[in-house]
């Protein structure tokens, strides 16, 4: 009895002490501290680290220029491990501690959604940098979304084909997962508008390692173009098999992942001439300031600034603009609606809703086997209401 009671009291004490150790502090008037959620471990760590690197570069550049309204921008990384549990904890840490000015990041729509529920209990908002799903703006009312809706990628792929080959016939080859329905909706919408012919939809299961059947079926209708709904490594394997039979058919990405090292290493020379889709303005361009940012990122990290990194950068730019306009963490939502900034992915504003009003998506031709070997061929502006036009 005595032993049990002693152990119980000790346990209760430890739990209570740990609970009491939870982070509680006051906001530092000289800093804008941003809690930045990204997967820094596990399968998605590479993309998560890129997202974070972009955010940290933005903080460095803003601080070198005098900070946000004179305040130092500080990025505090939090590993969300791509799990709802970790995302919830990060959001509750943000809600609990007034030292955090904003919660941002998120590579995944679901995690941003989970975090939004927790933040909403404290009437706070967050910014999803690279989780782009429609549910974030339809089912949550406290999430700002930096990227275009997934159907925009389908629209851009079809628009590019229509611009290159008017009246073209194309087929799609994709992994068979329900999430791609959003992309297919965009593809179908432009196919109807631009008088294209979608000859067939070839799919393979997520576990597939052999793509010969889908490639043979796809090429049977002698299409002018093939739209790829495959992830990096499998997209490269599909392309390699296509090139053995038809070296000239257009191969256009629909997912907007920005084909990188994995794709290029797997496809080798077969990658040359394929068309990759990047969320944002793509690589290079005429804007000297933007090119300087891309070059600095490449110097610091030894790789090109991926779309994820660019969105991480622009997220911090947007928050700093709001802080500069006098926002507090409680009224960040109102101030974000007033910003008008130029980011590395294009213009940033939220005047028409919580998804960025205009987003740019680029199509680049791959010209070599290094990630930077690509030439931007077309840039499309997608508005938050789904309209698409060539970027001016």
């Amino acid at each position, binding site marked *: 009895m005595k032993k049990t009671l002693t152990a119980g009291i000790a346990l209760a004490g430890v739990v209570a002490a740990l609970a009491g150790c939870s982070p509680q502090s006051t906001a530092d008037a000289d800093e804008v501290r941003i809690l930045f959620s990204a997967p820094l471990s596990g399968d998605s760590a590479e993309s998560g680290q890129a997202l974070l690197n972009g955010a940290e570069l933005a903080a460095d550049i803003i601080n070198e220029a005098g900070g946000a309204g004179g305040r130092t921008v500080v990025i505090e990384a939090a590993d969300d491990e791509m799990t*709802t549990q970790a995302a919830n904890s990060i959001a509750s840490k943000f809600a609990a501690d007034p030292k955090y000015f904003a919660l941002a990041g998120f590579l995944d*729509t679901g995690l941003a959604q989970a975090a939004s529920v927790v933040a909403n209990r404290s009437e706070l908002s967050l910014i999803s940098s690279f989780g782009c799903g429609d549910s974030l703006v339809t089912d949550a009312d406290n999430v700002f979304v930096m990227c275009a809706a997934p159907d925009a990628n389908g629209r851009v792929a079809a628009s590019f084909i229509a611009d290159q080959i008017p009246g073209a016939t194309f087929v799609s080859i994709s992994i068979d*997962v329900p999430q791609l329905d959003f992309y297919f909706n965009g593809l179908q919408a432009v196919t109807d508008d631009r008088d294209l012919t979608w000859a067939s939809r070839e799919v393979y299961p997520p576990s597939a390692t052999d793509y010969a059947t889908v490639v043979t079926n796809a090429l049977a209708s002698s299409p002018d173009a093939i739209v790829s709904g495959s992830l990096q490594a499998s997209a490269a394997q599909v392309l390699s098999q296509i090139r053995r039979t038809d070296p000239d058919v257009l191969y256009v990405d629909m997912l907007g992942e920005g084909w990188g090292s994995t794709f290029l290493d797997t496809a080798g020379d077969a990658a040359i001439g394929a068309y990759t889709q990047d969320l944002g303005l793509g690589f290079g361009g005429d804007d000297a300031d933007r090119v300087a940012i891309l070059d600095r990122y490449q110097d610091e990290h030894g790789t090109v600034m991926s779309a994820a990194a660019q969105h991480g950068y622009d997220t911090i730019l947007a928050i700093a603009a709001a802080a500069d306009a006098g926002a507090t963490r409680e009224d960040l939502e109102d101030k974000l609606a007033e910003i008008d900034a130029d980011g590395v992915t294009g213009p940033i504003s939220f005047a028409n809703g919580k998804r960025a009003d205009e987003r740019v998506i680029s199509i680049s031709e791959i010209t070599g086997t290094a990630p930077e070997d690509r030439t931007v061929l077309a840039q499309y502006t997608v508005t938050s209401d789904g309209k698409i036009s060539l970027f001016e």
Partner: protein
Amino acid sequence: MNSRRTPARGDVFTAGGTLDTRGLQRLQSSAVVRWVAIAILAAGVIVLFNAGDPFTLQVLTVALLNAAITVSLSISFGFAGIFNLSQGSFYGLGAYAAAILITDVGVPFWVALLGSIAVASIFGVLMGFVAVRLRDDYFAFASIAFTIIITQALINLPELTRGGTGFFGIPVVDIFGWRIATGRDSFLLAAIGFTVVFLVTHRVTRSFFGRAMLAVNHDEMSAKAVGVSVVFTRVVAMGLSSALAGLSGCLLTVTMLYIQPSDFSTVLSMNVTLWSIIGGPTSLIGSAVAGGGITFLQENIRAIVDYRLAILGIVVLIAVYLRGGVLRRPSWMRLPKGTR
């Protein structure tokens, strides 16, 4: 095990002798009640002192739910000896059943709770029949396959489950006028849920059925010889274990208001089994402390996150060496050498 003393009423007879259950009967009234009272007291203290701290409340809510599913696993894994690596799936089935019933069908919380328990227990009973046919590592493989099937089904039935991006738009529930709208409400509901799961598991494992499960686990042939139905025991054990996991899943849905299929993948099921091994598969308090405590520490001591798998692995090795978990169960419940 004690083969020297004179068998008493309520003992379980096995090929190796008689399983002494006198300690078990003593435990029914005293120690467990004290422990539950202490846990509730600790929870009350935390709520009183941290009522406005969303982080602590959030972490404790998740910790309590993880403790609940670990405790519920004691029935199938600890007592019935079924190598169940699918507890996370039953948790997920309960969570999704509640989400669909509350959001799409519009039923009140209590109906959703019953629905969650029903759905999870139906699948649990089905797996119970599998457990009758397969043993040990063969059943472990089958339960992993079941977990993968459930996860894939949740992803690939978007009309029902909203697919891989998760179940959005779950409304705040109302329980007899109590709206589960804040972190504090969520914590209190999770605490009530954990207490219910713990006490039900405690009663089940200390009943005749609990002794029947131990008998089947220790020596199937002897259990049959004294009239214990192996089929009934295994099937009901799986059904009860999964029903309580389904109940916990329902509480996850109404406290978090968002769920996604990857939350219930093999990773969760493996973790629950590891927590159970660490705490002691037949120790309800050990299971609760391991499931809840590891979750709580993981979120509070982020500095060791990079080493968590290594630390967990070492603790599991210690638990296996100690035969019965780091938080050891009473000696009368430990299995004799060579039986596992």
